[in-house]
């Protein structure tokens, strides 16, 4: 009797990071039920809200790169398209509810993504990555060049409107965090559902063996463009969160190539082709600099200024990327899974 309870209890205690409904429910309970009450404004404003926006962007890129195997360096461009599209929809079509603005902004980002995904029909790997850079530079250029996008602000800066749904407005740090959490939760659930369908299998087939996929009858053109569309949609929505819920004042320069790389690093460190990996990677990228600055300040005192922080951050993240690419291409999520499995084996061998 005791052994039975032992073995049934052990997995639930250790499997909080492996994908199951219970784990997701627990995290949501924590996210809605606990964090808003006990978390500080700083935690929600400077840590959790950007974490959620980046995680959603990483999910978007993971759909394209991790699942469908199409490399992209244009993520920041689609963030920007989402942010500026939502801003303009809100400004110019005031009768539309904000949720509709967000969905439409995602759709506009998807359309732009599909256009810039067209080269994927001919190019792959490195060459495709370079061609997605075109999106990166074009979007940033267009947003600075044409004042219309920023309602004629000289440097393209936009001030995000207050997030308002019906009579509810989400102005406080807590409100904006809860709003982001809700959008990210819904988007993640829908993405997980899609990836479990035939479309998700088609993505992986195109990634793993394009010729075999074609022979079987996977529509290559449609599958690749769909990957670009869905990916850009998700990144576009993440851009709205980034601009409306997190920064609230954004400029085109904030969506530069560095941002694209940041999102790429999130999925490499977190784990390619894994939704959990996107969250774990985003958490790492957000929390790591904070930890590093605390640690640096504690160890080195005033020598560790922001310049040193930024440099050491780049060095460590660069080294980590290389380490992961060589030693564990499946990222942190694989390390965690392996640790959980090892702990479980240990438990079961003890009992």
């Amino acid at each position: 009797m005791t052994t039975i309870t032992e073995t049934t209890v052990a997995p639930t205690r250790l499997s909080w990071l492996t994908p199951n409904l219970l784990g997701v429910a627990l995290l949501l309970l924590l996210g809605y039920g606990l964090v808003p009450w006990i978390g500080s404004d700083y935690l929600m404003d400077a840590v959790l809200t950007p974490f959620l926006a980046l995680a959603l962007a990483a999910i978007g890129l993971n759909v394209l790169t991790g699942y469908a195997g199409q490399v992209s360096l244009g993520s920041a461009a689609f963030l920007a398209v989402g942010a500026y599209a939502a801003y303009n929809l809100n400004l110019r079509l005031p009768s539309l509810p904000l949720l509709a603005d967000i969905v439409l902004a995602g759709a506009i980002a998807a359309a732009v993504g599909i256009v810039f995904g067209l080269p994927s029909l001919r190019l792959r790997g490195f060459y495709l990555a370079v061609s997605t850079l075109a999106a990166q530079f074009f979007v940033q250029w267009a947003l600075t060049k044409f004042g219309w996008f920023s309602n004629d602000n000289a440097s393209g800066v936009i001030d995000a409107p207050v997030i308002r749904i019906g009579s509810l407005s989400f102005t406080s740090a807590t409100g904006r965090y809860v709003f982001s959490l809700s959008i990210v939760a819904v988007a993640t659930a829908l993405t997980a559902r899609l990836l479990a369908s035939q479309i998700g299998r088609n993505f992986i087939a195109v990634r793993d063996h394009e010729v075999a996929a074609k022979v079987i009858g996977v529509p290559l053109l449609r599958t690749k463009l769909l990957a670009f569309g869905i990916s850009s949609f998700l990144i576009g929505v993440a851009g709205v969160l980034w601009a409306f819920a997190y920064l609230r004042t954004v400029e085109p320069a904030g969506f530069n190539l560095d941002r694209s790389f940041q999102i790429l690093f999130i999925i490499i460190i977190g784990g390619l082709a894994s939704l959990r990996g996107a969250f774990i990677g985003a958490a790492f990228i957000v929390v790591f600099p904070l930890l590093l600055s605390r640690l640096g300040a504690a160890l080195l005192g005033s020598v560790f200024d922001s310049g040193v922080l930024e440099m050491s951050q780049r060095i460590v993240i660069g080294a980590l990327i290389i380490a992961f690419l060589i030693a564990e291409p499946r990222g942190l999520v694989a390390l965690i899974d392996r640790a959980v499995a090892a702990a479980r084996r240990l438990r079961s061998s003890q009992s």
Partner: protein
Amino acid sequence: MLLSALTTSLDVLALETWAPGTARQVLDTEPAAAPGAQVSGGPRAVLRLANISLSFGGLTALRDVDLDVAEGEIRAVIGPNGAGKSSLLNVVSGLYRPDQGEVWFGDHAFRQVPTAQLARLGVARTFQNLALFNGLSAFDNVLIGLAHRVHTGFIRQLVGSPAARRIEAENRAAAEEVIGFLHLQEVRDRIAGSLPYGLQKRVELARALVARPKLLLLDEPFAGVTLSGKQELAQHVRGARDRYGTTIVLIEHDIGIVMGLSDHIAVLDYGRKIADGPPAEIKTNQAVIDAYLGVAHEDETELAI
């Protein structure tokens, strides 16, 4: 990936010079029927190659090859390394465009077979080098063999419309059946890339079989499989024909397997078909023996049996 890159860059100026009844310099052991006509009395040809030639730059991979594969037969294609066997299958599946000749599926003739339509034409194939989707489970690899049947768009799949759910359920049932048929239940949830080689070969066979193709092209399905595995796999191949009525074109080096399994054997050598007939005839065919003796080849002793 490399393969498709090569095919797209194949710059072939094909001349539409094919005509029925072109003189063949091929040593046929069977009277070849004129293309388009029925083999007298016999079952209709599921696959017919008419005068296929293919070259890569200066290298001729196939030269005036004709081939008739009757419904429900197992047709082996043998020949030394580099004889053009895989190239032949690549022509049949549209990955290569021949310089001349036509490929017939039943009554449809193609200059270049449209690869994307292959599954809908009832043709499935396996590859000489494993071509599984390594990131998917064995079951999902089999399931995706039915990709061409999923015609619901992404919104309907996302919301799970009745049509989408019905197709998914039908496909899952079909995949489940083939998994059972090939005894893959134990590994159905394992990631395909993590399976041993022989099992991966079997998963690939299952993926090709799940669509119940009229024509199944197998490129060395037995290579790298253990001896006992070979016997088992051979039974599965024959079982596929007996159970689903599938016509099979089989490329294989193991002469023992080929003799036991096939109804007819075509022999390629340097891109030419040098013989075509029932196993007993091929075994004693002088041209075949010469071809195998002429090149240092591991199978020559096996042929002598």
